[in-house]
């Protein structure tokens, strides 16, 4: 994996890596170390000194009903966001793949939402479902359904899921479409000559062939729903009602900055750090496999 030909000297390369090292040290390693360090202490009530409590913050954290609930909330939220963004994207990509003419135009049109920030997506969906002025909630009202995501926990969850999944459809569509276009035509045609119908061909041949992409998107979307949906949740529900949409990342924010509970927030960061580590390892293991594929 190393270059055969290299340049001599060691002062220049050190100078070249210095900017990145400096920024990583100041804004990455020091804060990450602080998060781990702070998770072992609690400040006294006056904020004058801190006391070492070992794993006390973690014990306290996992005995906290709201924290355990936020694990469950995060799990449900990520599964729903992943499904709600993968399935429509796959469906659209399969159809677009059958079209010779126009697929490019549809692709250009479908890319748009990717460029829309999650927080803006939140504002757009909030506007549609606003309990007073929202168009969708008004028409739902006409149909006899009283939409109120401010009070109803399930509706709040549904709304943040829809708003989070919306922008991801573009992203997933692009990857599915590329994967489908790369499936060798000879295979599909051979199956067609053998008389296999479209959906049968899809499930028995195409889907296994694009399964690396499918798995890759599964991991990427879960990571997305963990971290990048903060803007959606903050604009639409602020974690409510009754913490029904408080995910792990949202809780770090609300405990650390709103509640000023630094020890707990730091312990939560460490728990999340471990979770991300596991997800990253899964991703890398899979990428190795994909290279062999």
């Amino acid at each position, binding site marked *: 994996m190393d270059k055969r*030909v*290299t*340049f001599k*000297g060691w002062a*220049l*390369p*050190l100078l*070249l*890596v210095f*900017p*990145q*090292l400096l*920024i*990583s040290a100041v*804004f*990455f*390693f020091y*804060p*990450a170390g*602080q*998060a781990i360090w702070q998770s072992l202490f609690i400040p006294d009530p006056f904020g004058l000194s801190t006391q070492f409590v070992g794993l006390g913050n973690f014990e306290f954290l996992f005995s906290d009903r709201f924290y355990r609930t936020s694990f469950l909330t995060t799990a449900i939220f990520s599964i729903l966001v992943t499904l709600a963004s993968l399935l*429509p994207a796959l*469906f659209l990509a399969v159809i677009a793949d059958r*079209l*010779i003419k126009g697929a490019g135009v*549809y692709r250009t049109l*479908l*890319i*748009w939402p*990717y*460029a*829309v*920030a999650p*927080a*803006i997506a939140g*504002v757009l969906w909030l*506007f*549609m479902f606003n309990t*007073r*002025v929202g*168009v969708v909630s008004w*028409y739902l009202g006409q149909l006899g359904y009283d939409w109120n995501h401010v009070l109803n926990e399930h509706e709040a969850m549904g709304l943040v899921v829809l708003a989070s999944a*919306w922008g991801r459809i573009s*992203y997933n569509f692009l990857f599915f479409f*590329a994967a489908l276009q790369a499936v060798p*035509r000879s295979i599909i*045609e051979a199956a*067609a000559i053998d008389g296999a119908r479209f959906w049968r061909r899809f499930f028995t041949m195409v889907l296994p062939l694009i399964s690396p992409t499918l798995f*890759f998107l599964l991991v990427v979307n879960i990571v997305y729903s963990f*971290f990048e949906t*903060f*803007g959606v949740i*903050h604009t639409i529900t602020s974690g409510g009602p009754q913490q029904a949409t408080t995910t792990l*990342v949202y809780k*770090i924010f609300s405990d*650390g*900055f709103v509640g000023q509970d630094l020890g707990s*927030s730091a312990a939560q960061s460490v728990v999340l*750090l471990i979770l*991300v580590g596991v997800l990253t390892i899964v991703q890398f293991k899979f990428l190795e496999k994909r290279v062999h594929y």
Partner: protein
Amino acid sequence: MTNTRNHPTQAPPPGMVEKRGSSLWLSHVFMILGVLLVFFPIWLAFVASTVTQADITRPPMPLLPGAHFFENYGKALTAGVNVPVATMLINSLIMAIGIAVGKIVISLLSAFAIVYFRFPGRTFFFWLIFLTLMLPVEVRIVPTYEVVAGFGLLNSYSGLIFPLIASATATFLFRQFFMTIPDELAEAARVDGARPMRFFFDILLPMSRTNVAALFVILFIYGWNQYLWPLLVTTDPSMNTIVMGIKQMFPSGDDTADWPVIMATSILAMIPPVIVVVSMQKLFIRGLVDSEK
């Protein structure tokens, strides 16, 4: 991710793989429906930005644009709610370009050092940089905030930009790319007596042009769409970025939000990233695929 599959130039035998007749029609209908559904939230925001507040607060609001386009956008850009939207647009632009350029520059330099030199601590630096891939800023948010506050960088562009470029995705991308460049080029440069930086500027940089452009597109959107970090770091409204500033435009309490101005701001917040994505579609898709590998 281009169209790798060779579509036959002559029409294939009817009814085999490509659909024709009613089925082809149906595919287009599905695609158009899909595009319309995906587009609806953006359309509705656009309509809301061209009507009066009264049109919106008496639901249902109209579904076709009104005549108040210039009035609403003018009001948003010059007055806004807390601060003129034009100011927030400039802040976002500086932040997004700062993140994209900053990250590309430090990554190019350190990737060059890691690939083309053997220097003490090289492997160590490599793993150090590798570690930064694991932790998004959301996880170490509280300590990072403390560091930035400690440097007095709250409400500054440096405070907005630097913590977000402390990750190594781009370094890895460039490393992968440099590894594919034939050794003969560096060999020739060395034989000619070219100094390393000469090789970097005259050969490596021009060869990386496409990768740099693709990465710029991805990083620009990443920077533009940031929400949580600007929310914490910019307490002064005149430093707000547009994506985080929109939430600040909602009144607290029971006052009715100024929907036409808020929606005009949402549209304004989408325009730069949408232009970048749609106009540089090929580069964008390439950057997307590269940065996820």
